[in-house]
């Protein structure tokens, strides 16, 4: 393996000083002169017609500057998905009716938060309740309450994908039986496959909604300048592009007049990707009043009114030969979508595509529907699709192995794809560290000595997962600039958002490596839509592979320019030169060289003022123009996959059914660790988050009302819950990754959940069919077993 100076080193994060001193300014910390404070009135009805909204008393309250309702934002629709097939259907503020408890009904801007809250209490909303439906399988039945009528695009309105260059116009969509999204993917011949199988197994899992639980609540500060028409924004986000596109689209402000400023971002995990009603409302109020407006959501509204992860019922039927060869698989999905589509159409597709790179299954059918219910909407969360499917598929793998008397490790290894495999959609596995991940995690955990041998109440389990490295999504490119400074340092302009995952450090490492510099020699400008270039950002884990790579490409461009000028100065060929410590030297005679600052001056003097600026760009999947088909799964998805194998060891208390995770081993293929400290942090993070998913996280509803919308009733792991965690690097460098690197932020969570589920089964032999593994479920299962 090549040795690098800066890449591969656990360099302290560049955002450290701001974060440990409290200087880091998050959206919540932004205060502007004359700023007003906004609050949103949320629906208390799950499904009701709005008969009347009386805002007169609220408007009279001293200090109130504006009260708006759906009449003010009439016709403004937004959504994560807005394709020719699936038009965006969520109103900014509810219009004729409300469809979930927590939907926005009115908003107030006032001189302070207390006044805004008082004004909310003075708004009278008259509702006429309509029968509601909360269970997707009930909602699909004939005669169930219909949550949406036909979704007809407004005349002249282009859908987002038309704006982004797709030729097809938006069509109207009629959600018959509340079905708002569907997927149907197949290859090979499933029927024939199952007929050739010696053994068929059919299992169903129910995966609940969980919350992203970012420590920073969602919020926005918007400042509209009435004379210039410019809108300045401070947002808690995962990338400025999608937010500014949607705010521009809904408010019809030219995108070039809209600027998202750099903020520190307090966690995202997928839950801050899409635009939200509160962001559009803040901008709307600011424009209406010509004043800055701040709108921060209280924690309960984060739970009830932004989005949770996607709830799915997953049915998997699998056909296997006696020797353990998988011959067919048929998956059926039903998603409890909530009142609007959120990212469910994407998730239904990802449930297939996130798993397709793992096992070689010759005959496959994957179908699913997203069903409207009167609940809050659902969205991507860290490994979207993979997380839900991995629990179902990997537990079934263990049960099949048990039924056929196969070793679960060997059974998996036998069916894994191979490096170089080309998937049905033409994605190629140019790197494939998964077999190594499995072998190393199994070895490190001493699996052979433990599996089935730990005694009652103790178990060990294995699961594997994979993850995209970016996929076609707005704006389909990442751009970057690296410029030379007077003293031979450089300034890098990076578009992607830092929300904890580390690109402010890792990107600088890539640039420093390429230019022979130290990380301190790289100044960084990031996260500002006006200063930075277009950026694809971190959607579907494209951060390292797409956005960071664009920065590396810009550094490569600058390197070539610097070498060319240096070659002229030294009267040597550029190929005979190298660079280190802010100077270019002759490889054969390292004492001979010129410093970067001299090269810059020479370039300016002799080359018409050229100040040496490197340009770079990168596309998620260079071969395709836009994106794959969500409903058919055709077209290229991603250019590389990351992989994880996780092993978990647990103990289960028979008296209470409570599971304690003792140790998690994470074997991960991230191509190359650019910064091992940050990589470890990402994997530890996912190990602990996955433990929460497996054991206790569940957003619970009663008649459409979220009943645990706070951190007391909705538990996330705490410091004393954490198990031993061992991180194992099993990377296979990808030829298209920057220095071989791939994503490391999302893949592992799914494998960790699956490994805990399998370990609990190994410990108890209790088959559970829903997450989380609440003690009650295990306890009842153990009691049932005792009866038998």
């Amino acid at each position, binding site marked *: 393996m090549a040795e690098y100076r800066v890449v591969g080193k*656990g360099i302290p994060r560049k955002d450290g000083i701001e974060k*440990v001193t409290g200087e880091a300014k998050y959206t919540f910390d932004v205060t502007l002169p004359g700023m007003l404070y906004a609050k949103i009135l949320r629906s208390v009805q799950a499904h009701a017609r709005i008969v009347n909204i009386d805002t007169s008393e609220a408007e009279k309250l001293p200090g109130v500057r504006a009260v708006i309702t759906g009449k003010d934002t009439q016709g403004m629709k937004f959504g994560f998905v807005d394709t020719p097939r699936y038009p965006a259907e969520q109103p900014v503020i509810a219009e004729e009716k409300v469809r979930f408890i927590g939907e926005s009904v009115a908003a107030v801007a006032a001189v302070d938060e207390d006044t805004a809250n008082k004004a909310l209490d003075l708004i009278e909303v008259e509702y006429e309740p309509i029968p509601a439906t909360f269970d997707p399988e009930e909602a699909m039945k004939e005669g169930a309450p219909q949550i949406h009528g036909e979704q007809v695009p407004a005349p002249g309105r282009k859908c987002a994908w038309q704006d982004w260059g797709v030729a097809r116009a938006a069509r109207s969509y009629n959600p018959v039986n509340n079905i708002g999204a569907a997927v149907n993917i197949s290859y090979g011949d499933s029927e024939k496959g199952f007929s050739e199988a010696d053994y068929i197994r059919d299992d169903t899992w129910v995966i609940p909604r969980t919350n992203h639980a*970012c*420590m920073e609540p969602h919020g926005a500060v918007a400042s509209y300048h009435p004379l210039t028409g410019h809108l300045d924004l401070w947002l808690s986000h995962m990338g400025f592009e999608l937010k500014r596109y949607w705010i521009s689209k809904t408010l019809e402000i030219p995108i070039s007049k809209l600027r998202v400023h750099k903020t520190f971002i307090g966690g995202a995990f997928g839950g801050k990707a899409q635009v939200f009603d509160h962001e559009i409302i803040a901008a709307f109020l600011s424009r209406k009043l010509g004043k800055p407006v701040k709108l921060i959501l209280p924690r309960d509204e984060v739970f009830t009114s932004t989005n949770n992860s996607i709830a799915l019922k997953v049915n998997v039927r699998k056909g296997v030969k006696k020797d353990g060869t998988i011959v067919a698989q048929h998956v059926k999905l039903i998603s409890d979508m909530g009142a609007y589509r959120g990212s469910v159409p994407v998730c239904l597709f990802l449930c297939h595509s996130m798993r397709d790179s793992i096992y070689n299954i010759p005959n496959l059918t994957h179908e699913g529907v997203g069903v409207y219910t009167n609940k809050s909407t659902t969205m991507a969360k860290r490994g979207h699709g993979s997380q839900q499917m991995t629990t179902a598929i990997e537990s079934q793998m263990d049960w099949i192995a048990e039924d056929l008397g196969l070793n679960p490790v060997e059974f998996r290894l036998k069916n894994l794809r191979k490096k170089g495999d080309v998937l049905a959609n033409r994605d190629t596995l140019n790197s494939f560290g998964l077999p190594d991940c499995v072998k190393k995690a199994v070895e490190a955990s001493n699996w052979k000595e433990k599996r089935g041998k730990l005694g009652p109440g103790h178990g060990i389990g294995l699961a594997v997962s994979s993850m995209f490295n970016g996929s076609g999504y707005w704006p389909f490119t990442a751009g970057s600039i690296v410029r030379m400074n007077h003293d031979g340092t450089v300034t890098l302009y990076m578009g992607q958002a830092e929300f904890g995952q580390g690109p402010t450090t890792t990107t600088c490492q890539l640039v420093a490596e390429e230019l022979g510099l130290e990380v301190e020699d790289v100044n960084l400008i990031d996260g500002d839509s006006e200063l930075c270039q277009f950026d694809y950002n971190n959607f579907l884990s494209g951060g390292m592979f797409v956005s960071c790579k664009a920065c590396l490409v810009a550094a490569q461009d600058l390197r070539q320019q610097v070498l060319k000028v240096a070659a002229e100065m030294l009267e040597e060929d550029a190929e005979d030169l190298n660079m280190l410590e802010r100077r270019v030297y002759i490889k054969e005679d390292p004492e001979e060289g010129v410093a970067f600052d001299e090269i810059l001056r020479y370039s300016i003097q002799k080359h018409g003022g050229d100040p040496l600026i490197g340009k770079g760009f990168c596309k998620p999947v260079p071969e395709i123009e836009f994106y794959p088909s969500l409903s058919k799964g055709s077209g290229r998805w991603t250019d590389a996959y990351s992989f994880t194998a996780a092993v978990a060891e647990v103990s289960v208390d028979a008296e209470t059914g409570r599971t304690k995770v003792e140790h998690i081993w994470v074997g991960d293929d991230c191509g190359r660790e650019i910064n091992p400290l940050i990589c470890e942090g990402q994997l530890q*993070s996912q190990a602990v988050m996955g433990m929460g998913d497996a054991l206790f996280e569940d957003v619970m509803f009663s008649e459409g009302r979220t009943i645990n919308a706070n*951190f007391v009733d909705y538990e996330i792991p705490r410091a004393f819950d*954490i198990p031993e*965690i061992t991180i194992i690097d099993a990377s296979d460098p990808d030829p298209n990754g920057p220095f071989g690197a791939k994503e490391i932020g999302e893949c592992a969570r799914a494998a960790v959940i699956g490994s805990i589920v399998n370990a609990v089964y190994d410990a108890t032999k209790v088959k559970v069919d829903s997450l989380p593994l609440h003690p009650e479920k295990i306890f009842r299962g153990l009691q049932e077993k005792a009866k038998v």
Partner: protein
Amino acid sequence: MELAKKWIKVTVNGEPRELLIKPNITLLDLLRDYLGLTGAKMACISNSCGACTVILDGMAVKSCSVLAMQAEGSEVLTVEGLAEGDKLHPLQQAFINHAAFQCGFCTPGKLMSAKALLDENPQPTEEELKRDMEGNLCRCTGYKKYIEAIMDVAQHPVKYSAKEG
């Protein structure tokens, strides 16, 4: 009805302050809205996440759940008062060395909880530390690295007092 404002005397990060405030505001509001000290964060307003932790007369408190008036005559230390000039507090340095933060939103609260603990118990066991920090939620780090960072300070006070790392 508007409550009559009241004067409060409080020492914040070593500086005596005298302020006219609404009597119903929290200590967190006082710090953020009156003094512009935005290091302490509001993430739950239900005393359950620890992002707003500051030190009040030597004790770590969740400032979202303490009325400002309760701090009358007291000394408050916030994350902004941890470093001395160009010298980071050992805990701050250790957090950087160990990459003990990711998004950083809950970091000020953790630092203040950890300082209060180490002031009282300079050599905690890892178990004691984890128990003590249970009130500080974190979604990014998985807790591992900041527990290591705090233990590093507890076990190597000399290394950190010499400002190395």
